[in-house]
Structure formats: structure tokens, C-alpha cells
């Protein structure tokens, strides 16, 4: 018997057509799955009421795979076959690992991505993540009573294409249809309703179990743009446990501890940390393997003292992110807290002090990312009314076309939201030009040669006109799936040509990142190249125009005048062959000067020619 949820007015699904969609926070330490039920986002719990699923997978020799708390229990006895924090290996090769000695795993280098040796065979991070996702999918289907239409899965904002693709592959392997990958900080902002409440710049401070991420988001009309990210991949709530553990060892006068005692004390340390969120003091009581009893009282004050350096350590990435985004503190509209470790009062206080405002903390910091993902999934599955819009995607690199001199003219700048359409007018470069080659490029650099070529096509049948008279409107259109169509139309005759291109095709995110980086590194170099190319284009067009004029109206000049013009022409031609933009400009001005009298006479002659044979009344 199916159970009903309350739908939005007019949105009740047809029988057997429930659009069940979930949001999944696939975390380094813990994962969660959430959905929107009767209009409100909720995290789905397992049979025991637990919402967090430790992102831990254990592989046994008999082929049995266990996930979550059950797998976590095997970690100490079978560390090599118990995979924790696999997210760090997603889309990574062995050579990318900073310190593989720090993990108990035996890695196998495989093309593209490493694998981990287990008794059940070599497992790629994609397979391990798929096992976690499969578990969450099962939980969701049991909870929602049906098959899922799809899922929104969150990824860190700094994830590159390989890591995103690996996440998507893991979902496919788990039998999940990925509606969209959503940046974790964006999901958190969505959960707080910032997507329909406000415009402005928000900071997402995410202190998880083992990692710290800070992201700066800019929100404009429902579009989240990640301005910068920073963080510390080896800083998290676990480090706070470690400090308490060290304090216990020191204050109880303990010496060398075995594995069992270390784990025991770390567990007590974590419990003490959690207790100190709501209490001023807690007791740590543990019986060690040798019968020795540890019994200490830890006050919130001491805890804050011994962990103050850790809290302080989170501030410098925040500063860096602000600096990278070229932002001032006064421009920040709000701070969103994510991650269980942000429950600690002194972490909240430090953030509040730094920003001079209270951070948003009213949602459970462990769940906020999953909740936001669920809300986005619900919208993408089509369960919301028409007045609710979706988060929009932006194009990662500018789209433009080649103009004379090998320069890029950007038509749609990067970070424009899609779908979008922009038009720009271009003109002919030569007298009597009847065709125009249109070269569509993608990238931030000034020169076409440094950008990526996407497509070429030609507009033919332009009526012969003098250079600059034709008006050719080029329209770039990018649809919601990122597909680009370019069309060109000559305005007076209506002749048209068009082409459809797929801008992101074959362009991986890391390639995009490299191209962006290139554009920044080469900005000044590019400007020089642009100035030079522009000067040349101007010079060439003046040379062509002067030549044409000499050919048609040369008789208007006497020999001396003609020699002067030709000398100036030759000097400009010589300059144009060189690399000095200022010289080209100077000679262009000189030729302009030298031909100004000639131009005036041509104008007079043309007027006279035009008037010949016309009656005065017709000129009225």
C-alpha cells in the first residue's frame, strides 16, 4: 500500500508516477540521504534511527561487503580491507597522493585512477563510493516506498572534472540517476533558503571530521557563483579529539599506550568534546587494558584553551579566500556554518568575532548539505510549482568569435547563466566583400590562437558594399544543457547561416581551469598582443582604402601630392610588418594626415558626379 505525501497545489502526481528524488551528501567521513516529504526536507534515517552513514566500506574474503557503522567496527582488526575516507582518492592516481604511507592501504596504480588492494580484489575509489551510494539508495527506496527518479549528489566546490566524473560514475555504478552534481557550499546555502531570499556574497565555513573548507559564494538572481575556495585538507573535528587525548595522556601521567587504549581514549575524548558543547565541565573516565583507571574532569575553558590554535588555524584559509575573491569583510552578507565541528561554541564565537556577525547555525550542521541537495532534487524532479525556479548553471569559459587580426571578440562572457542568447553586430572589412567566415572560439585569452576553436562556418551572399556598410548580426544561443548555436544574418538582405556546437564537448574541467589560469598569467602579454593586432588591422584597412582610392581617383592628385601619399603608404606598410604598435599607430596617423586633402577632393568629386544630370527640384 502506497503512502501519500502532500503535493504542492496542482502538482499531485498521477498514480504510479511519483517523482521520488533524493539529495545525497557523499562525505569524506559520513554520508547522508535526504528527501522532501510533504513540502519539507528531511534526512532519512535507518532502522535504528541513525541518519549519518559512516563512509566506510569493509570487504571480506568471502565477498561480503559491509557499509557504515558495521564496517567501522572492523577497522581496527582489519584496517587494510576497511576503506575509510575514500573520497580523498576519487579521480586520483597514485602519484597524486601526498603521503600514501599515512594510510594502511596497498595502492595499485591503474590508468586514470588508483585502486586499493583488498581481499575481495582491487577496488577503485569509484567502486567503494558506489557501495556507500548503493546503501543510501536502498535506505531511500525503503523509506519512500518506490524507485528513485534520481539524485542530486554534492561535491566539494574545488572538485575538478576527474573527481566530479568519478562521483558521477560511482552513482551510475550504484544504479542512481544523477540529476545534478551540486557544490556542497551551494547546497548549504540552498538549505538556508538563501537561494530565494537574498542577493549578495556569502561565506560557507565547513569544518567536518577531517577536512576544513571555506567557500565564497556570490548569489545573483538565483545563480550561485563560487568566487573562491580555500581550506585545509588535514584539519577537522578529529584534531580536537586528538588534543583532548594528548591532554589526558599528559594529565593522567600515562606512558606508551597500546592500540586498544588509544582508541578507547580517543572515543572518550570525542564524547567529552561533544558534552562540552552544552556543559561547562565533563568527566573522562576509562579503564585501560592494564587495569589502570583514568578519571579526569575537563572544563570547557581548558578545552577551549588547548584547542584555540586549531580554531585559529581555520581563520587563515578564510582570509585567503577573501583575498582571492578580492573582497572586503564589509561586502559579506552572511556566514553559513556546515559540519559537525561547527557545533563547538568557541568555533562559532571565533567565526562570529572574525566576521563581526552571528553565523547562520539554526539548521543541523551535519545535515544542512544533504537537506539543500534534497530541495534541489525535488525541484529538478518537477515537484514544485511554476513560481519556484531552479539554481542556474553558468558557462565556465567565455564564448566569442574571431575578428580580423586573430583577435577574440567575447560575445558571451564566462559565468553567464544559461540558457542565454546574445547578439552582436559585425561588419565587412573589405569593399565588395560578399562572404564572412565565422570562427567560434571559447576561452579568456585575447588571441584566437590561445583559445579553443569550437566551430567555423561561412555566411555567403552578402551584397557587395563598401567596407563597413554591411551589418551582420551574429547571435550566440546557449540552451539549458549547455549546447551552443551560433547564427549570422546580414540585416539588409536577410541572408543567414548557422551552426550548432557543443561547447563543453571534450573540454574537461581541468582544461578549463588551466585555460583560466593561463588567461590570468598572460593578461598583460595578451593586452600587448591585442594592441599590436588592433593597430595592424587598422593600418591594413587604411592601406587597402588608400590603394583603392588611388586606383579610382588618382587623377585628383598631382605628381608631387601622389608621391607624398605613396611615401606615407610605404612607411605604414613597413611599420605594419614590424612589432611596434606605437610605430604602426604613428604611421597610420601620418597616412591619414597625408590623405586628408585627397579625401576631401574625392568627396567633392563624388558629390559633383552625383549631382550631374539632376534637376534642382529633385534635390529639394
Amino acid at each position, binding site marked *: 500500500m*502506497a503512502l*501519500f505525501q*502532500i*503535493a504542492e497545489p496542482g502538482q499531485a502526481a*498521477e498514480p*504510479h508516477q511519483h517523482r521520488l528524488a533524493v539529495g545525497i551528501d557523499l562525505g569524506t567521513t559520513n554520508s547522508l540521504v535526504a528527501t522532501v516529504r*510533504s513540502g*519539507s526536507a528531511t534526512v532519512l534515517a535507518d*532502522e535504528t534511527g541513525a541518519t549519518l552513514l559512516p563512509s566506510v566500506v569493509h570487504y571480506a574474503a568471502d565477498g561480503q561487503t559491509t557499509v557504515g557503522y558495521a564496517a567501522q567496527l572492523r577497522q581496527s582488526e582489519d584496517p587494510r580491507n576497511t576503506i575509510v575516507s575514500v573520497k580523498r582518492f576519487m579521480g586520483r592516481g597514485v602519484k597524486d597522493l601526498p603521503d600514501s604511507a599515512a594510510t594502511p592501504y596497498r595502492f595499485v596504480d591503474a590508468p586514470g585512477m588508483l585502486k586499493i588492494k583488498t581481499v575481495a580484489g582491487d577496488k577503485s575509489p569509484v567502486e567503494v563510493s558506489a557501495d556507500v551510494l548503493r546503501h543510501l539508495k536502498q535506505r531511500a527506496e525503503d523509506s519512500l516506498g518506490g524507485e528513485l527518479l534520481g539524485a542530486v549528489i554534492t561535491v566539494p566546490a574545488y572538485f575538478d572534472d576527474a573527481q566530479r566524473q568519478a562521483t558521477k560514475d560511482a552513482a551510475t555504478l550504484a544504479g542512481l540517476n544523477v540529476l545534478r552534481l551540486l557544490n556542497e557550499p551551494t547546497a548549504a546555502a540552498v538549505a538556508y533558503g538563501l537561494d530565494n531570499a537574498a542577493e549578495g556574497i556569502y561565506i560557507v565555513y565547513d569544518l567536518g571530521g577531517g577536512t576544513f573548507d571555506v567557500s565564497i559564494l556570490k548569489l545573483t538572481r538565483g545563480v550561485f557563483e563560487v568566487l573562491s575556495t580555500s581550506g585545509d585538507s588535514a584539519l577537522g573535528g578529529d584534531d580536537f579529539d586528538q588534543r583532548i587525548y594528548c591532554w589526558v595522556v599528559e594529565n593522567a601521567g600515562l606512558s606508551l599506550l597500546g592500540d586498544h587504549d588509544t582508541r578507547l581514549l580517543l572515543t572518550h575524548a570525542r564524547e567529552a568534546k561533544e558534552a562540552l558543547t552544552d556543559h561547562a565541565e565533563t568527566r573522562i573516565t576509562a579503564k585501560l587494558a592494564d587495569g589502570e583507571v583514568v578519571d579526569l574532569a575537563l572544563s570547557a575553558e581548558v578545552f577551549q584553551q588547548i584547542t584555540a590554535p586549531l580554531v585559529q588555524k581555520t581563520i587563515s584559509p578564510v582570509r585567503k579566500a577573501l583575498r582571492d575573491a578580492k573582497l572586503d569583510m564589509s561586502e559579506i552578507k552572511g556566514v553559513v556554518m556546515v559540519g559537525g565541528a561547527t557545533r563547538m561554541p568557541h568555533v562559532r564565537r571565533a567565526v562570529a568575532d572574525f566576521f563581526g556577525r552571528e553565523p547562520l547555525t539554526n539548521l543541523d550542521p551535519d545535515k544542512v548539505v544533504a537537506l539543500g541537495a534534497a530541495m534541489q532534487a525535488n525541484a529538478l524532479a518537477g515537484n514544485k510549482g511554476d513560481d519556484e525556479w531552479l539554481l542556474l548553471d553558468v558557462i565556465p569559459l567565455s564564448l566569442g568569435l574571431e575578428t580580423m587580426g586573430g583577435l577574440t571578440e567575447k560575445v558571451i562572457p564566462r559565468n553567464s547563466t544559461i540558457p542565454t542568447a546574445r547578439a552582436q553586430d559585425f561588419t565587412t572589412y573589405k569593399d565588395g566583400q560578399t562572404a564572412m567566415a565565422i570562427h567560434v572560439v571559447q576561452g579568456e585569452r585575447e588571441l584566437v590562437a590561445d583559445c579553443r576553436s569550437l566551430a567555423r562556418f561561412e555566411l555567403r551572399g552578402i551584397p557587395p558594399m563598401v567596407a563597413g556598410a554591411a551589418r551582420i548580426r551574429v547571435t550566440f544561443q546557449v540552451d539549458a544543457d549547455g549546447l551552443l548555436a551560433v547564427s549570422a544574418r546580414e540585416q539588409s538582405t536577410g541572408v543567414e547561416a548557422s551552426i550548432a556546437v557543443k561547447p563543453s564537448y571534450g573540454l574537461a574541467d581541468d582544461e578549463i581551469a588551466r585555460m583560466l589560469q593561463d588567461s590570468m598569467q598572460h593578461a598583460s602579454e595578451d593586452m600587448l598582443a591585442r594592441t599590436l593586432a588592433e593597430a595592424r588591422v587598422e593600418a591594413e584597412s587604411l592601406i587597402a582604402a588608400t590603394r583603392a582610392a588611388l586606383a579610382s581617383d588618382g587623377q585628383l592628385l598631382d605628381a608631387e601630392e601622389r608621391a607624398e601619399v605613396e611615401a606615407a603608404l610605404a612607411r605604414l606598410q613597413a611599420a605594419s610588418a614590424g612589432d611596434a604598435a606605437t610605430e604602426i599607430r604613428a604611421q597610420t596617423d601620418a597616412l591619414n594626415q597625408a590623405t586628408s586633402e585627397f579625401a576631401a577632393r574625392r568627396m567633392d568629386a563624388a558629390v559633383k558626379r552625383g549631382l550631374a544630370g539632376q534637376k534642382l527640384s529633385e534635390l529639394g
Partner: protein
Amino acid sequence: MGLSLSESAAKHVAKYIAKRGRGVGVRLAVRTSGCSGMAYKLEFVDEAAAEDLAFESFGVKIFTDAKSLPYIDGTELDFVKEGLNEGFKFNNPNVKDECGCGESFNT
């Protein structure tokens, strides 16, 4: 007769409306479709229509239309948990026969 909510259903509807931030009640209706001829509709109501029929249970308003009422008259909407799944259930005395999943029925 009319329509009613169980206490648990009323509590959940009230909670969902509060979380949603708007809404005056819940709509129970039927439409012709599905494998057994009729299908239930359960939606939030932002604004009642002039021709709507209204009922109330535990302070929560229930709306329906005159065409739907004969098929669902006497229905009590309940809120139940089945394993991990939870949601609303139509206890409709008019049902003679329903499809396996209970999403559509005939009278």
C-alpha cells in the same frame, strides 16, 4: 459524513504547513485515472475555491470539491509508518476494489 483527519494526520498536516510557511489546509480529491479507474489527490491548499466544500478535524481544514465528495465521503485520512516509510493513508469506506498499491480504486 464528510471528510476527517485522524489526530496523527492532523498533527502532521499542521506541522508540514508550518514548515512550508503558507497554506490554509489540505485538499482531498479524486480524479479519473490509474489502473482501477479513480485516483486520489492530496495537495496543500493556498486559497480555497468558492465552490469548495470544507471540513475540519483537530483544527485543520480539509477541502474537497462536489464532484469528488461522493467517491470519498466518509474518508478518514490517517498518518502511518510502515517500516522506514511514512505517509498518509486514505481510509475510504466507498472503495470496493483497489489496485495492489492502493493508489487508485473504484467504487
